[in-house]
């Protein structure tokens, strides 16, 4: 079973390589495949002003991601996972501290750091193909080079047949694959994924996780993937950065040393997931407590229930 899966993935990735190499390099100003670059956050704090004074979103976050690494930021809501992504993307500026891309400081968004959003964020007035070509147009790539590149990407995400569809005519999973293709269009060094599969059903989600793993294996881009799903993180990441909440901060790193490709229902994935879930349980609980009223009881707490049902127990 495992060897079969491996053979399947190898087959897919060699097909991918064939597609990549078939692209005539002279026609594209973008190098065929740029692999990842390193990213670093140093003592980054971010506060925003609100009605009740300054709210601390992120406290003293330090994070180093090496080139080609696949990391997952994992934590409950309010832990600043998406904030870290926005900081790296250049969509937000830190209150203090430094954000670096390679050796250069990040000052504004740029096509070398592409983002895949949870809602795909495809442009509704453009066909799928025009969506993928949009970032290339911004870079003033000639039309034939754009077509070649978008064809390659449409085939990479298996949406070639649907190139002339508008986003509303595609399913959620197809839209998300389209968004991944669009993010890859400018051949970024870093791929930032902000809970890209959170709104999908679990089957589609698993298929897309496989796609992301395959694309990452083939391109060796640096991937920073935000999720609140422990299994997803264990399935995908080389390293999981656990995040705490109130205020958002980096807790610690968890290395995932399992062979790829991984399956979500693999026993080792499940075991590691359970361990990690336990480690962040207190943080998750903190959020749940704040968002629920006093009658809420944490799953870990002892709940006596009706004493009559306990009769005879423990004899």
């Amino acid at each position: 079973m495992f060897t079969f899966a491996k053979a399947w993935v190898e087959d897919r990735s060699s097909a991918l390589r064939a597609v990549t190499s078939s692209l005539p390099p002279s026609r594209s100003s973008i190098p065929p495949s740029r692999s990842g670059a390193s990213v670093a956050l140093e003592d980054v704090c971010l506060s925003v002003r609100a009605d009740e004074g300054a709210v601390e979103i992120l406290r003293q976050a330090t994070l180093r991601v090496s080139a080609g690494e696949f990391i997952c930021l994992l934590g409950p809501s309010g832990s600043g996972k998406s904030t870290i992504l926005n900081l790296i993307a250049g969509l937000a500026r830190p209150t203090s501290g430094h954000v670096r891309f390679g050796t250069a400081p990040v000052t504004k968004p740029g096509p070398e750091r592409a983002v895949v959003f949870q809602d795909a964020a495809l442009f509704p007035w453009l066909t799928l193909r025009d969506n993928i070509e949009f970032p290339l147009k911004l870079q003033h790539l000639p039309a034939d080079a754009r077509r070649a590149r978008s064809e390659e990407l449409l085939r990479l995400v298996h949406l070639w047949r649907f190139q002339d569809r508008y986003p509303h005519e595609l399913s959620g999973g197809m839209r998300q694959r389209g968004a991944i293709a669009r993010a890859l269009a400018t051949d970024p060094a870093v791929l930032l994924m902000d809970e890209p599969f959170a709104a999908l059903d679990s089957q589609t989600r698993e298929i897309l996780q496989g796609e992301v793993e395959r694309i990452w294996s083939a391109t060796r881009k640096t991937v920073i993937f935000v999720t609140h799903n422990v299994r997803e993180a264990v399935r995908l990441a080389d390293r999981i950065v656990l995040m705490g909440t109130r205020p958002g901060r980096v807790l610690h790193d968890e290395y995932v040393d399992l062979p790829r490709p991984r399956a979500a229902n693999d026993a080792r994935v499940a075991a590691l997931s359970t361990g990690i879930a336990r480690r962040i349980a207190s943080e998750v609980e903190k959020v749940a407590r704040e968002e629920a009223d006093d009658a809420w009881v944490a799953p870990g707490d002892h709940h006596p229930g009706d004493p009559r049902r306990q009769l005879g127990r423990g004899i």
Partner: protein
Amino acid sequence: MQDGTLPRAIAITVARLLVGYAIALIVGVPLGTALARSRVAKQAIGPIVLGLSSVPSICWLPLAILWFGLSELAIQLVVVLGAALPIAVATENSVRHVTPSIERAARTMGADGARLMLTVTLPAALPGILGGAKIGWTFALRSLMAGELLFVSGGLGQLLETGRDLGDTALVLGVVVVIVILGRLSEVLLFSRVDRAVARRWGVEDA
């Protein structure tokens, strides 16, 4: 009507309408965009725009006549004011409600400033702006008719007034029918094609 009064009146009215409406679009869309995007603009002129848009634009005719006399300019001022304000209000609303991730996605691809506005924000706001543009069109037509009725102007409005002066009910009703046809025709020629394109792209639910 063999003497060509009607065709001439229609031509005058349609020309005025198109010119006034074009100016209203050129003024209204940027004004609405500025209101949506600039705090200063919103605080400085937002209340004025909202207030003025609830004033029937024909109220400006006396002032326009005082300023510009009985001229083309006076009547255009009324048409432009009547149409530009609803267009601006609708544009402001729809630009404000563009899905944030759409603009953020475009920014990560390197679009910013005017290019972001022209290639992403305004297309994304198009369904809403189109709604405002339709309202603007009917407002322009109404303002123009009212304006033409009130002074010697040569358009369909004046023809209506002539009909009243002569006690010619047939002429009055005839002109009304012409105006109805004009309204329908503009709907078919101007908006239905854009409407269909928007429906095709955004899906039927928003169009």
